C-alpha cells in the first residue's frame, strides 16, 4: 500500500516538475509542492477512513491557505452529495445533503475537473461568507465518488490553485479508495474470522452452551455488530441460550424468553426469514416497548437470522445488534444467511456432542446409582436412594416413586418440594397420566403440563407448581408393572430421548434393586426366624457340611451335649462328641437312639437326621435334630424296675402264703400243732405284708390322682412313734439299736394318726434298710414354735448330695451299697411319705452326707391349744 503511494507521489513529482521549471514563481511553487507531497505521504500512511478524511481537509486548507475546506460524498444512485467532513465550517454541516446537479460541486462533477468561482452559490448558510471557492471532483475508475472544496472569505483562488486542488483531489481519491479498500478488506477479514470461528466451533466438540456463545461472538464479529444473542425454542418460547457482549438490559429482557413486544422476531424465526432493522427505534414492526428497550441498550440496528434447531421442530434466531445505525446491505444479509447455516451445522454438531455427553454422563450416573442400589438391601432405603438420585440424574427438582397396591398407585417415597405432602397419596392405576404409564407400560414425557390443566389434577405433585413431568413404569421380574417413577421440573422443558432412556434405565435398576432388597429382606427375615426357631427350639439341632464339619450347633444342642457352640463349630461330631451322628448308609430312617457322654454320664439322645443333597444328588450336608431322652429313659427304667420290683415284692409273700398252704395241705406228712400254727402265722403275716404293698400302690395311685384323704385331728404323737419303733424292734431288725427321744408331756399335732404311723414306719424302715451294718437309729419328736418336728436319724451309708433331690420321686430307689447288689423295695416309700406329709399340711426333708448316715425329718402343724 505504501509502495503504491510512493509510486503515485513520484508520478506527481514528474508531472509537476516541468510546470515548476516553466513558471517564474518556481520558488513559490516549490514549498507548496513539498507541502503537498508531505500531506499526501501523511494521508498515504493513514488507513482509517475516519481519520483520513479530517486529515485530508485540514491539510488541504493549510496548503491552499484556505479558510474552509470540505469533502462531500457523492451518492450516485440518489444523485445527492452528503457532507462527510469539514474544516473551518460548523460541525453540524456533516451529514448535510444537497442535490448533486446543483451548486459548484455539481458543476465540477459534470466537468470532471476543478471549478473556480468567485461569489459561489450558497447551498447552505454556512457558505454565505465565502468570497472565493474551488471545488474539485474525486474521480476514480467508476467515475466521481465525491468532491473536495476550499473557500476563502477574503480574496480569490487562482487557476494554479485549481490545478493544485485537482492534483490533491487525484491523490485524495487514491487515499480514500485505499482506506475504503482497507476497510472493506478489514470487514472481509472480520467476516472471514467469523467464519473461521464458526468453523472452529464446528470442529470442536464444544458443549452446547459454549457453542451458542461462540456463535454469538462469531456473528458479532462477522457482521461488525456490537453484540449478539442466540435464541432457541424451548417449550414454545424463544429462550436466550447464548450471547456475546450483550448489554445488561437486553440480557435481562431476553432472560424470560423473547418478549411479546418483539413478536416480529419470533414470527421471522418461525417462518425461517431474515429480519433486518436498520433503525430499530423507528421500526414499526416492533412494539414501542421493544423499541425503547433497544434504544436504552444502545442497539440502533439489528439483524435476525433464522437458525435451524437440529432437534426442535421450530427454529431459533441469531440476533446481531449494532450500536450505531447501520444500513444493512445485501452483503450483510447474505452473510447472515451463511452465518445462520453455519450456526445450524455447529448446533447440530454440538447437540450431537451434547447428547453423547449427556448420554455418557447419564450412563455414568446410572452406573453409580446402579452400584449404589445394588448394595442397598433395605427396600425403603432403595426408594429413598432413587428419589434422591433421579432428580440429580436429570437436573429436575423433584421425584416420586409410586408402587401398585391393588388397583391403586401409592406414593411410597418422594424428594423435592411438595412431595412430602404427597406421601401415601393414592391414585387409580387406570387414571390419567400415571395410570396411562401403568397401562401402556411406556414412559410419558410432558414438556409443559400447563397445556392441559387435567394433568395437575391427575398428579397432586404437579399441583405443587411443577411444569414438566416425566414418568416411567417400574417393571419388575416377569415383566409386570409394579409402580411408576416420576420426575418433576419447575420449568417447562423438552425431555430429551436420552433423558427418558436414562430414567427408564434407572427404573429398571430400581425394580431390580427393589426385588433384590425384598428378596434379601424376606431371606433375612426367614433367616432370623429360622435362627429364632433354632435358638428357641428344645431340640438340639446340628448341621454339618459336605466335609462333615459342624456349621450349626444351636443352644439346645449346647445344653443337651454340654458342649458350647464355639467348641463344636468347624469340627466333626466325632471329634466333638466322641462318636458320629450319621446313620449308616445314605438314607436315614426315623428316630434312632444314641448314647453320648455328658460330664462322665451317659446321655440318651433320640435323633433324627435329614440329608441335604446338591443338584447332582451328592450329599452336601446333614442336619441332625435330637432330643435328650435321658430323663424319659430314666423314668422308663424306673418304671420297668418298679414293675420288676413290685413283682418281686408281691411274689415273696405270695411264695410263703402259697407254699405254707400247699404244705399244710400235704396228706403225707403230719405236722404238729406248733408247726401248723407257725405256718398259719406266716400265712397271716405275709398276707398282711401283701396288703401293705397293695396299700402302698393304692396310695401312690391316690396321690397321683389327688384322691388321698386324711382325717386330721389333734393327736398326741408320742404313742404313735413308740408303737412303730417297738414294732420295728420286734421285726428282727438285726443289729440295730433304736433310741426314742420324746418329751414327757403330750406332744400334739394336727395329724391323721394312721398316716403318721405310716410315715414314721417308712422312715424307720429306710433307716434300717440303708444301714446294713447296723448302728443306732434315733427317732425323735419335738415341739417347735408352730409345728411338731419328727426326725429319724441313722448311721448308715448316707445319701450323696446329688441324690437328695431325687429320693422323694416316685420309683426312686437308692443305689445299694455296692453296685452289683440288687436294690430292693418298691421305690415308693419316700414318695408316699412326702405325699402324706404334704396332705397333712407339713413338709419333709433330708440332711445327709454320703457315708455318714442320713437324717430324715418332717414337720406337721402343732395342734391348736384347747381352751
Amino acid at each position, binding site marked *: 500500500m505504501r509502495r503504491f503511494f510512493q509510486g503515485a507521489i513520484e508520478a506527481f513529482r514528474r508531472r509537476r516538475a516541468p510546470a515548476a521549471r516553466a513558471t517564474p514563481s518556481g520558488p513559490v511553487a516549490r514549498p507548496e509542492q513539498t507541502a503537498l507531497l508531505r500531506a499526501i505521504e501523511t494521508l498515504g500512511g493513514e488507513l482509517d477512513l475516519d481519520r483520513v478524511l479530517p486529515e485530508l481537509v485540514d491539510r488541504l486548507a493549510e496548503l491552499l491557505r484556505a479558510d474552509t475546506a470540505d469533502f462531500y460524498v457523492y451518492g450516485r444512485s440518489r444523485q445527492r452529495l452528503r457532507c462527510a467532513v469539514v474544516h473551518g465550517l460548523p460541525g453540524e454541516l456533516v451529514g448535510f445533503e444537497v442535490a448533486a446537479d446543483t451548486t459548484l460541486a455539481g458543476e465540477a462533477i459534470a466537468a470532471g475537473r476543478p471549478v473556480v468561482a468567485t461569489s459561489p452559490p450558497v447551498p447552505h448558510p454556512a457558505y454565505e461568507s465565502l468570497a472565493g471557492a474551488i471545488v474539485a471532483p474525486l474521480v476514480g475508475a467508476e467515475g466521481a465518488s465525491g468532491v473536495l472544496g476550499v473557500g476563502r472569505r477574503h480574496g480569490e483562488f487562482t487557476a494554479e490553485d485549481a490545478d493544485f486542488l485537482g492534483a490533491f483531489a487525484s491523490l485524495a481519491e487514491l487515499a480514500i479508495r485505499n482506506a475504503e479498500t482497507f476497510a472493506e478488506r478489514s470487514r472481509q477479514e472480520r467476516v472471514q474470522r467469523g467464519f473461521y470461528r464458526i468453523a472452529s466451533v464446528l470442529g470442536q466438540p464444544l458443549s452446547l452452551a459454549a457453542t451458542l456463545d461462540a456463535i454469538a461472538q462469531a456473528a458479532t464479529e462477522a457482521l461488525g455488530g456490537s453484540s449478539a444473542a442466540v435464541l432457541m425454542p424451548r417449550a414454545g418460547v424463544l429462550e436466550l441460550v447464548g450471547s456475546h457482549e450483550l448489554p445488561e438490559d437486553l440480557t435481562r429482557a431476553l432472560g424470560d424468553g423473547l418478549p411479546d413486544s418483539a413478536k416480529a422476531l419470533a414470527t421471522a424465526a418461525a417462518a425461517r426469514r431474515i429480519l433486518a432493522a436498520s433503525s430499530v427505534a423507528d421500526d414499526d414492526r416492533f412494539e414501542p416497548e421493544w423499541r425503547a428497550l433497544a434504544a436504552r441498550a444502545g442497539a440502533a440496528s439489528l439483524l435476525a437470522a433464522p437458525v435451524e434447531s437440529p432437534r426442535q421442530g421450530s427454529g431459533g434466531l441469531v440476533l446481531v445488534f449494532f450500536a450505531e445505525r447501520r444500513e444493512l446491505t445485501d452483503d450483510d444479509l447474505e452473510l447472515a444467511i451463511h452465518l445462520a447455516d453455519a450456526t445450524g451445522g455447529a448446533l447440530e454438531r454440538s447437540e450431537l456432542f451434547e447428547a453423547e455427553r449427556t448420554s455418557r454422563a447419564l450412563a455414568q450416573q446410572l452406573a453409580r446409582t446402579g452400584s449404589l442400589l445394588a448394595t442397598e438391601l433395605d427396600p425403603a432405603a432403595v426408594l429413598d436412594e432413587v428419589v434422591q438420585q433421579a432428580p440429580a440424574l436429570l437436573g429436575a427438582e423433584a421425584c416420586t416413586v409410586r408402587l401398585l397396591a391393588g388397583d391403586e398407585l401409592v406414593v411410597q417415597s418422594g424428594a423435592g418440594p411438595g412431595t412430602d405432602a404427597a406421601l401415601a397419596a393414592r391414585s387409580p392405576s387406570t387414571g390419567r397420566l400415571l395410570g396411562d404409564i401403568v397401562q401402556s407400560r411406556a414412559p410419558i414425557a410432558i414438556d409443559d403440563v400447563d397445556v392441559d390443566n387435567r394433568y395437575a389434577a391427575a398428579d397432586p405433585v404437579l399441583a405443587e407448581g411443577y411444569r414438566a413431568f416425566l414418568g416411567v413404569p417400574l417393571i419388575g421380574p416377569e415383566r409386570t408393572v409394579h409402580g411408576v417413577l416420576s420426575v418433576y421440573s419447575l420449568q417447562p422443558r423438552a425431555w430429551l430421548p436420552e433423558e427418558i432412556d436414562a430414567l427408564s434405565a434407572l427404573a429398571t435398576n430400581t425394580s431390580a434393586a427393589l426385588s433384590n432388597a425384598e428378596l434379601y429382606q424376606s431371606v433375612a427375615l426367614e433367616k432370623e426366624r429360622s435362627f429364632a426357631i433354632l435358638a428357641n427350639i428344645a431340640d438340639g439341632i446340628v448341621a454339618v457340611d459336605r466335609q462333615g464339619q459342624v456349621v450349626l450347633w444351636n443352644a439346645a444342642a449346647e445344653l443337651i451335649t454340654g458342649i458350647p457352640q464355639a467348641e463344636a463349630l468347624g469340627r466333626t461330631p466325632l471329634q466333638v462328641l466322641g462318636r458320629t451322628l450319621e446313620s449308616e448308609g445314605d438314607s436315614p430312617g426315623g428316630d434312632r437312639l444314641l448314647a453320648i457322654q455328658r460330664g462322665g454320664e451317659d446321655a440318651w439322645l433320640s435323633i433324627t437326621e435329614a440329608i441335604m443333597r446338591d443338584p447332582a444328588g451328592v450329599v452336601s450336608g446333614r442336619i441332625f435334630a435330637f432330643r435328650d431322652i435321658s430323663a424319659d429313659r430314666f423314668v422308663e427304667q424306673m418304671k420297668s424296675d418298679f414293675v420288676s420290683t413290685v413283682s418281686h415284692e408281691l411274689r415273696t409273700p405270695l*411264695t410263703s402264703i402259697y407254699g405254707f398252704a400247699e*404244705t399244710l395241705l*400235704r396228706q*403225707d406228712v403230719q*405236722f404238729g400243732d406248733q*408247726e401248723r400254727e407257725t405256718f398259719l402265722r406266716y400265712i397271716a403275716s405275709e398276707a398282711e405284708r401283701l396288703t401293705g404293698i397293695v396299700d402302698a400302690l393304692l396310695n401312690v395311685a391316690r396321690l397321683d390322682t389327688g384322691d388321698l384323704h386324711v382325717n386330721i385331728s389333734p393327736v398326741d404323737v408320742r404313742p404313735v412313734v413308740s408303737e412303730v419303733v417297738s414294732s420295728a424292734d420286734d421285726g428282727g431288725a438285726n443289729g440295730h439299736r433304736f433310741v426314742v427321744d420324746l418329751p414327757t408331756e403330750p406332744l400334739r399335732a394336727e395329724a391323721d394318726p394312721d398316716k403318721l404311723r405310716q410315715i414314721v414306719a417308712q422312715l424307720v424302715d429306710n433307716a434300717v434298710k440303708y444301714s446294713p451294718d447296723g448302728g443306732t437309729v434315733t427317732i425323735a419328736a419335738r415341739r417347735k414354735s408352730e409345728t411338731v418336728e419328727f426326725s429319724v436319724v441313722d448311721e448308715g451309708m448316707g445319701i450323696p448330695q446329688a441324690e437328695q433331690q431325687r429320693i422323694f420321686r416316685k420309683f426312686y430307689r437308692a443305689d445299694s451299697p455296692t453296685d452289683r447288689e440288687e436294690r430292693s423295695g418298691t421305690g415308693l416309700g419316700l414318695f408316699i411319705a412326702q405325699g402324706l406329709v404334704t396332705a397333712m399340711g407339713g413338709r419333709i426333708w433330708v440332711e445327709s452326707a454320703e457315708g455318714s448316715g442320713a437324717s430324715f425329718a418332717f414337720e406337721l402343724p402343732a395342734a391348736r391349744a384347747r381352751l
Partner: protein
Amino acid sequence: MTRVLVIDDEAPIRLLCRVNLEAEGMEVLEAPDGPKGLEQARAAEPDVILLDVMMPGLDGWQVAEQLLEDDRTRSIPIVFLTARAEFRDRARGLDLGGIDYVTKPFNPLELAPLVEDMLKRVGRGERDELRGEKLAELRALMRDE
C-alpha cells in the same frame, strides 16, 4: 442222704423248703445271707444248693460266682430261687453256671422231685446236658414271648 443247703434271707421261705425237703428224707441246711451261705457250703459240702437271688449284702449272683470259683464248692449243683420273673434273670442264673431255677412262688412239694431228678442226671454225668436243656427251654419261651 441228700443234703440240701437253702440260702435265703426270708425266714419263711427257708422254713418252707426245710419242711418239705425233710419230709422227703433230705437233710436241710439253712443260711440267712450270702456270706453265711458260702461258709456253710464250704464247710458242709451239700449235694445241692437252693440259692435266693435277692438278698441284702451279697446277692445270689455273687454267691453263685464265688461258689463256682471255689474248688471245694464248684461241683455243687446250684438251683436259683428267684422272685424275678424276667427271662434275663433266669438266663443269667444259667449263664453263671446254675443248673436250674425255680421261680417264686413255687409249689414246695415239687422241690424234692426236682432236686432228686437233677441229682440223678448230674450223677449220670449229664450236668451240661441238663443246663443245655434248660437254656433251650428258656430260649423257646423267649421266642414265644
